[in-house]
Structure formats: C-alpha cells, structure tokens
C-alpha cells in the first residue's frame, strides 16, 4: 500500500464518518414524539389569546416549516438538510436569539473552545509524556519513581473535584487568577491576547492536570518496556549516549501508540468542554450547548452537535495524516 492509498483511505473514512454522524443527528430528534413547531405555535397562540385566524396560523406554520427545514416528507427534509448543512453551513436561526443565525453563534464560540482545549490537550500530552518517559527510562532510580507517583495521584481524581480544588487554591487561597474570568467582547486581537491568556489560565491548568495522570502512567509503562527492546540494548552496547538512547530510541518508538491515544482523546474534547466551560463560565461551544439544551433551542443544539462531530472527526483525520511522519513503516512500505 503506498502512502497515497493510505491518505485516500483515511480521507474516505473521514467522509463516511461525517456522513453517518450528520445522518444520525438528523434522524434522532425526528424520532421524538414532540414537534417543535406545534410547541412554538401553541406558545404564540396562548400569548395572542384567541385573536389569530386559522389562515394566519396555517401561514405561520408553513413559514416556520420552511425556516426550520421541516417541510415535506422525511426524505425531502433529509435531502434539504444535507444540502443546507454541507453546502451552506446553515442551521437556521436561533430560537432564543432570534433572528441571529445559529452558524454565526457557533463560529463566535468555536475559536474559544478549540483554543482552550487543543492547547491544553497538547500541552498535557507533551509534558505528561516527557515526565512518563523519564519515569520509565530511569525506573530503577528513586527520584524517577516520584514522578510516577504524580501520575498515580492525579489519574483517579474526577475532573470536577480537580477543577474545584484548583479554583480554591489558585483563585481563593492564593488569589493568582480571577475567580470568574472576564473576556473582552471583541474577541482575540493582538492587544488583548495577554488578558485572554491570563483569564484562560485557570481552566487550562485544570485540563492539563486532568490529562496529565493518564499520559504519565501510560508513557511510563511504554518507555519501560521499550527500554528492554533489543535495539535499545544494542544501542547501549554500541556506546550510544544515555540521552540519545532515551530520545531517539525509546521515545521515538514509545510515542507511536501515544499519538494514536492523542487522536482518541481529541475525540472526547467536547465532553471536557461542557463541564469546563460551565465551571469557569467560559464563552465556548460547551456553554452554548448548555444554554441551547436548557432553553429548548433546537437549531442551536443541532448546530453545535453537528459542529462538534465535524471538529472531532477532523482532529482525528489530521492526526491520521501526520502519523506517517512519525512511523516510517507506514510512510515507505
């Protein structure tokens, strides 16, 4: 299999995953017994009293169905839905922020979420793996065992307890960071990058710590077993320096399963978003989803779920596409 076949296969798989994901998000809400338009119309009717004429209600229903893509039989709806989502990225207007389009709201929130979660996931991956590497490579040194204990202690702590502890320590006992962050309304610019970084530090620290434990423990055991591989022993007998053996021999090989693990953990990134953004009132997609769910904003919920499917699948695709850089056995067969 050549490298192009590898790429073609990954991209093909990516498109299939997206398609299935979009299809499920389309059909799942339609299996619910309630019709959002009935609900909306009855709301308007109760507000207006009995003053609406049946023709007006019928016209309203038809307009709403058009607006929310609920016109025609289910197949027509499906085709229209795919057409709107894929070609125009249009999820209709928001119920709560009518008439602002849902896609605008998502695109405003998405950079916040991606910025926070990508950076903290990758930082936690890098630092966790480096600590795990040292702990595994020098497993017979007492000082390295201390590093492993960090992982063992951090790993089992549930995220919300970890996050609350960090808030308590770093915002209350030692008020280093603000208790509730404030973000400039105009978004990221050169001038306010410092403010944003400072205000994002607390949620970022909790996310890094939460991902830490697992990365340390798994890298430690990987490095420990890789160190016993014949090629590492042979490198030692060749007189290769300790540093080169640890980096070029042990790390380069032990990181491969960890890159795959990074792709998998990027998949769960939006789980983290929901809780983190609620705890820190951080203006990302997680908070948007929560608002949408609690206020019955179907379009917004739809849009943010679809967006997270696309984001997760894309992150996985990117890792798959750069994986051959690390493993020549896939690059040149």
């Amino acid at each position, binding site marked *: 299999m050549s490298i192009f076949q590898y790429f073609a296969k990954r991209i093909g798989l990516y498109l299939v995953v997206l398609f299935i994901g979009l299809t499920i998000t389309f059909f799942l809400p339609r299996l619910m017994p309630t019709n959002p338009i009935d609900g909306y119309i009855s709301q308007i009717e109760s507000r207006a009293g009995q003053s609406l004429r049946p023709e007006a209600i019928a016209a309203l229903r038809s307009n709403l169905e058009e607006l929310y893509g609920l016109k025609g039989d289910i197949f027509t709806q499906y085709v229209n839905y795919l057409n709107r989502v894929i070609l125009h990225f249009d999820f209709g207007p928001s119920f709560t922020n009518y008439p602002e389009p849902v896609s605008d709201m998502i695109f405003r929130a998405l950079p916040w979420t991606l910025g926070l979660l990508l950076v903290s996931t990758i930082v936690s991956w890098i630092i966790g793996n480096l600590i795990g590497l040292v702990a595994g490579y020098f497993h017979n040194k007492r000082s390295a065992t201390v590093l492993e204990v960090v992982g063992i202690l951090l790993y089992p702590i549930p995220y919300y307890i970890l996050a609350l502890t960090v808030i308590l320590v770093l915002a209350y006992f030692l008020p280093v960071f603000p208790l509730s962050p404030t973000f400039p309304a105009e978004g990221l610019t050169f001038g306010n990058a410092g403010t944003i970084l400072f205000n994002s530090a607390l949620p970022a620290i909790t996310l890094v710590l939460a991902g830490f434990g697992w990365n340390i423990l798994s890298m430690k055991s990987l490095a420990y077993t890789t160190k016993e591989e*014949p090629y590492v022993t042979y490198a030692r*007998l060749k*007189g290769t320096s300790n540093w080169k053996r640890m980096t*070029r021999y042990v790390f*380069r090989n032990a990181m491969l399963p960890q890159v795959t693990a990074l792709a998998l953990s990027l998949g769960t990134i939006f789980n983290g978003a929901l809780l983190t953004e609620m705890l820190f009132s951080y203006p990302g997609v997680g908070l948007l989803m929560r608002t949408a769910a609690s206020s019955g904003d179907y379009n917004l919920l739809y849009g943010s779920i679809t967006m997270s499917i696309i984001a997760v699948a894309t992150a996985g695709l990117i890792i798959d596409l750069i994986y051959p850089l690390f493993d*020549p056995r896939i690059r040149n067969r």
Partner: protein
Amino acid sequence: MIRLNNVVASYKTERGVVNAVDGVSLEIPDGCIVGIAGESGCGKSTLMKVIYGDIGFPLALASGSVDYGFSDDSGKPVTSRNIQKEWFKRISYVPQSSMSSLNPVIRIRKQFLDFQDQTGNKAQILEQVKSYVKKLGLPEESIDSYPHQLSGGMRQRIMIAMATFFQPEIILADEPTTALDVVVQKSILLLLMDLQEQMGNTIILVSHDMGVHYQVTDKMLIMYAAKAVEYGDSEEIFQRPLHPYTRLLINSLPTIGDDRAREGIPGRPPSLWNKLQGCRFADRCPLATDRCRNEEPEFVEYRPGHFAACHYADSEANLSEVS
C-alpha cells in the same frame, strides 16, 4: 592476546547468588577465530558478556579479571573495568537478531552515527560508511533505508558493517546466523571470515551449530555447566577430542552417507543451584568413576595448546571406549 584469569561471574537472584561462569581461565591469541560451544545454560552468553564488559546488575564479576592485551589512549592497560570506553572502537559486538537490534523508526544512516563521542565531519563519515557498506556487498542506498525495507541477510550485513567499521581488535558474535536460512548463513559467515582475514582481528563466536564451528573457527572452547571443559585448536578438537563430553557432542553430528540414527547425550546438565562436587559431567559420562564423582578435575594442558578438564583425558580407555 586476551587473557581470562579465573573468571567467576555470578547472577544475583531472589534465590541467592548463582555462578553462571565458574572459574574460566583462557588465553586467546590475537588474530584468530575462537568458537564457544555448549548446551543452553552452560554459561556461553554470560562469558561473552564478561568479555564484552557488559557487567551490570544482576550480573557481577565475582572474581578474576580479563586483560585485553592493549592499552587505552592514556596508556593504561584495558581490563573489564574500563573496556566500556572502547566499545565499537576496539571491541565490537554482532547481535543474534538483526531485525530487532535495529531501531525501526530511524534510518540506518543515523544509526551509523550513534557511536559514542562521534566527532568529526558527519558528511565525511557517511561517505566512508557508504563505501564501506558497498565493499561488504550491499547497495550504497541501503544506509538510507529503514530496517524494515531490507531483507534479513542485508540487515545482518549491516550489523557486521557496524561492528567492523572502526576495525576493532576484538569482535564478539553471539549466534550471528541463527535467525537466518542456511544459504544466507553461509554468506554471512564467509563475509565474517573474509573481513577477519583482511583486518586480522580476533573473533569470538558463540554457536550451537558444531558444523559452523568446524568450518569457521581456528580454536574452540567447550563449556559445560559454567566450566570450561576443553580448549584447543579446532582441528585437534574435532580429530582427537580429550573430554568425553566433546567426543559425544561430535559423535552426535550427522555425516553424509551415514543414515544411522544419531544418539543424543542422555540426561541433563546439573542445576547450578545444587552443591556441585567432583566432575560436573560425571552423571552423564559413560566413563565416570568414583574419583570423578568426588574429585574435581583440573583444567590442564594435555597436549601443546590443548587443554581439558578430565581425570581420564589421556587414558586409553577414554580414547577407545567413547567413540
């Protein structure tokens, strides 16, 4: 000349200390190929580790020493305590399995530059590596490959190229051909012999295969249960072995045209954990007497350059009965 003075090497385990090499004394003259033969667990590989100077927990050099017969840059004689600085410069090592001994994710070219305190112009060294590899019958581009792109025979040639690149005085080869098919085995052994002839270095070769020993080695050491039992010129050993164990080993080799079933040597070597008394081969030896069971035989030179540890090494009974 490499001199082993009463080398005792022990492993520290949870059950206690066990001597895997128990008092081996040898002199290996420069520029010859020495084979080490013996059953699994007889201490061949441990002896190789000691000679290479790869001594670290759980292995320890309990007593004795190894002199390599040369001095380091500061003029101090090299022994097993400071040989590590000479790794791959004056003593090198060919591992058993070339597939798993090369790092799968970096190019062979880079693995050639991984030797200790590599100084000098990288490009220049690479040029030398290229022409050297070519001399060994490999395409120049093979050093730009990753290990998985080469065949087993090519990889083993690469290992030999690495081990001989700096023209070391001593090369240790621990079953260098076991993982290869016989055709490739032969070409690898011929290559090793060829290089040895050109460079005049000493090769110490461990192999289970008595046929390999017969064809390749100048001298042979037979080990049994952590002891050296016979040492001498290979031809002598194959023609006129002194120790009954050697004789039985040679008798178990098949010859073309002789289709009688080959007999193995009944029994197993003694456990090194037991308290051992007398000759360690006595339980399996057809010639053993009470003297063998109680008195340990000395490792003595019976003929010029031909040593053995057997009470009856030169007796007529030994020569005629076990044949």
